[in-house]
């Protein structure tokens, strides 16, 4: 279904909106006439997870083609390997349907239309939980029903000038229970954008106008207001009209300068200016590329849709003031060096230095009070800076991809630097593959290393690690390819059997008392250490910093008809 994935580092083109400051990932789906006629895949794991994918392409006459994709994922076998009485892995039942249409028009003009629907039912919690306990205060589970639809399209207007109309709409409906805590939310978004592309000599101009409408409503105080002493529901509606102008100026044979300016008006927060500038130099043979970019970004945080911990009910959520938008400035240097040799060896080095300064960032505070998550505007500033390096090598039947990132994400308030929780100080990733073409087999070995993270503890007595140790997840897969379009694959995931339990006596605090019935407090509201609660803790599922799923085998079948 996917043709290629573009990773845009640094402030992206103004086209992608004021939020795309740190870069973005662009997934370009196959157009229906490039996809295989039929593709089917089924795989299962030793944990009982099952995944099914079906893709089908059809043509209607000369000018219309369509692509249909169906995915079903199920995991319904509760496992408790760490013996804490809670499920190790969230149980899931998910169905999704994708359909894309492509219509051929005169002069190669575009008209595409795509839609997607996902329904998901997931839960995790007490091993004894069954659906009739949903929302009750006797047996704990987090359970979420999500239903989401999307519709998007591109229509090029039928005249000589290249004017494109892009539109999309989506609806997201979430019905959740965290123990007896309720979180029901609806978000609907409508989006339309006109862009005009014009080449004038060495300048490639792009001008456009966009409008985004966002409706959000939930059962929390985020969408409530007080009228004459009574709390009434007040759904949030935001209109975000914007205009942008961009000039890509190829001022010398090997050099391009891209300047963009975007103005948006947020009906709640007012004016937003986001300028961008990018410079690109390529060597004559295109084997060296240097990119410099800078720009500003703007983002409105919604803690309920972004921060899972705000929802678990284990802590109350407190806003110390009205949250302001997050504005940031980003600078980026990227250098790509390609080397190729006549024997087919191909090397690609990619190095990036990045720095982002946030004059406001909404960071959840778990430390001040174990009963609360406190959100507030930042008094000082926040930074995210680092270096990342990726190396790609291909030689005949061998492919290797190795990458690493070192970064520091922290905030500075009152001259005190605080590392952001759950943020690794370094990561590494690799992917080694070998193609045994003569016997139709492929071998793949992939892995990740995650550096230490600062983790939130509940009390001074909390015996869990305050900083995680570096850990690694590694997988191996072997594939047999037959001439008739059939492939069989299998392998092992998490070879080292790592889980966040390693080095910790437990990862979820007090699973035996998820409703905090036996937690005692002193007159100041601090949790008391008692014989039943020796570490002065309360129920806390927010510590888990990596997938709690150990080693497992998997096997699958894939069938493609071109």
């Amino acid at each position, binding site marked *: 279904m996917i043709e290629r994935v573009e990773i845009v580092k640094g402030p992206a083109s103004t086209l992608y909106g004021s939020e795309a400051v740190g870069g973005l990932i662009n997934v370009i789906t196959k157009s229906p006439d490039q996809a295989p006629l039929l593709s089917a895949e089924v795989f299962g794991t030793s944990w009982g997870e099952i995944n099914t994918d079906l893709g089908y392409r059809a043509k209607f006459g000369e000018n219309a083609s369509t692509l249909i994709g169906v995915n079903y994922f199920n995991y319904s076998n509760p496992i408790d390997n760490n013996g804490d009485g809670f499920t190790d892995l969230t149980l899931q039942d998910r169905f999704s349907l994708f359909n894309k249409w492509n219509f051929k028009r005169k002069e190669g003009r*575009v008209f595409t239309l795509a839609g997607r629907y996902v329904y998901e039912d997931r839960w995790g919690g007490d091993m004894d939980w069954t659906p009739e306990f949903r929302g009750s205060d006797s047996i704990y589970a987090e359970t979420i029903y999500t239903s989401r639809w999307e519709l998007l399209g591109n229509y090029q207007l039928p005249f000589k000038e290249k004017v494109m109309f892009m539109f999309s709409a989506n609806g997201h409906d979430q019905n959740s229970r965290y123990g007896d805590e309720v979180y029901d939310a609806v978000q609907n978004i409508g989006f339309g954008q006109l862009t005009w592309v014009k080449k004038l000599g060495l300048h490639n101009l792009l001008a456009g106008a966009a409008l985004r409408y966002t409706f959000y409503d939930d059962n929390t105080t985020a969408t409530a207001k007080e009228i004459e002493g009574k709390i009434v529901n007040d759904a949030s509606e935001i209109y975000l009209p914007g205009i942008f102008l961009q000039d890509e100026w190829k001022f010398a044979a090997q050099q391009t300068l891209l300047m963009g300016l975007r103005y948006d008006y947020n009906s709640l927060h007012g004016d937003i200016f986001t300028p961008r500038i990018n410079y690109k130099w390529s060597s004559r043979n295109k084997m060296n590329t240097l990119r410099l970019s800078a720009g500003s970004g703007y983002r409105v945080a919604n803690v309920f849709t972004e921060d899972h911990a705000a929802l678990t009910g284990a802590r109350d959520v407190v806003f110390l003031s009205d949250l302001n938008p997050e504005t940031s400035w980003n600078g980026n240097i990227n*250098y790509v060096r390609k080397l190729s040799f006549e024997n087919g060896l191909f090397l690609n080095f990619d190095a990036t230095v990045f720095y982002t300064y946030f004059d406001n960032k909404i960071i959840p505070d778990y430390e001040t009070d174990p009963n609360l998550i406190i959100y507030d505007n930042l008094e000082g500033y926040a930074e995210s800076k680092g270096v990342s390096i990726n190396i790609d090598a291909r030689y005949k039947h061998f492919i290797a991809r190795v990458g690493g990132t070192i970064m520091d994400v922290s905030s500075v308030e009152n001259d005190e630097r605080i590392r952001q929780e759950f943020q690794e100080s370094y990561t590494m990733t690799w992917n080694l593959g070998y193609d045994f073409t003569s016997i139709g087999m492929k071998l793949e070995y992939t892995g990740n290393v995650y550096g230490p993270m600062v983790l939130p503890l509940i009390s001074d007595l909390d015996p869990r690690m305050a900083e995680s140790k570096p850990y690694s997840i590694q997988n191996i897969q072997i594939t047999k390819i037959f001439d008739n379009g059939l492939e069989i694959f299998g392998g092992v995931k998490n070879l080292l059997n790592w889980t966040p339990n390693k080095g910790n006596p437990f990862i979820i605090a007090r699973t035996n008392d998820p409703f905090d019935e036996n937690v005692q407090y002193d007159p100041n509201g601090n949790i008391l250490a008692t014989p039943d609660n020796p570490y002065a803790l309360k129920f806390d599922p927010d510590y888990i910093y990596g997938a709690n799923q150990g080693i497992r085998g998997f096997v699958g079948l894939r069938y493609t008809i071109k």
Partner: protein
Amino acid sequence: MKYIIALIFLIPVLSQAQLNSYSANELDSLQYVEERPVVFFIKTDWCSICLGMENKVLKSEAVSKMLSENYYLVILNAESKEDIVFKGKRYVFESTGLNEGKHQLAMQLAKKDGTVSFPSTVIMIGNDVVYKNNSFMREKDLMDVLGLVLDS
């Protein structure tokens, strides 16, 4: 920082043999003057393997000599927005989104078993496609093919 930038610019850029290539628009008139088989090398800007093959294989001394003496080479960017008239028929860029799309001629030539992948090397004699390869070709393999086509 200044030093890093200075260093990058100082990295020597190797020079290569000059490659003689034509626009697909010129083919009809070129064939009228002298009939030759045509080699289409079909690539995209984001395909690094294509760039590697262009720089190391097509621009190698033997291949570039063979091509300029016996063939018309056309390097076709599959995402080029230029209209092409080839064998009397007009081919255009077929847009699939704002910054996405493929050129009709490139797609028609590169299609093999119903799908397209890059780089694609296509050889035509007159109206017939006599060879198609949808992957990186080493210098020796490409030379063998170019030799065989001439002998046929």
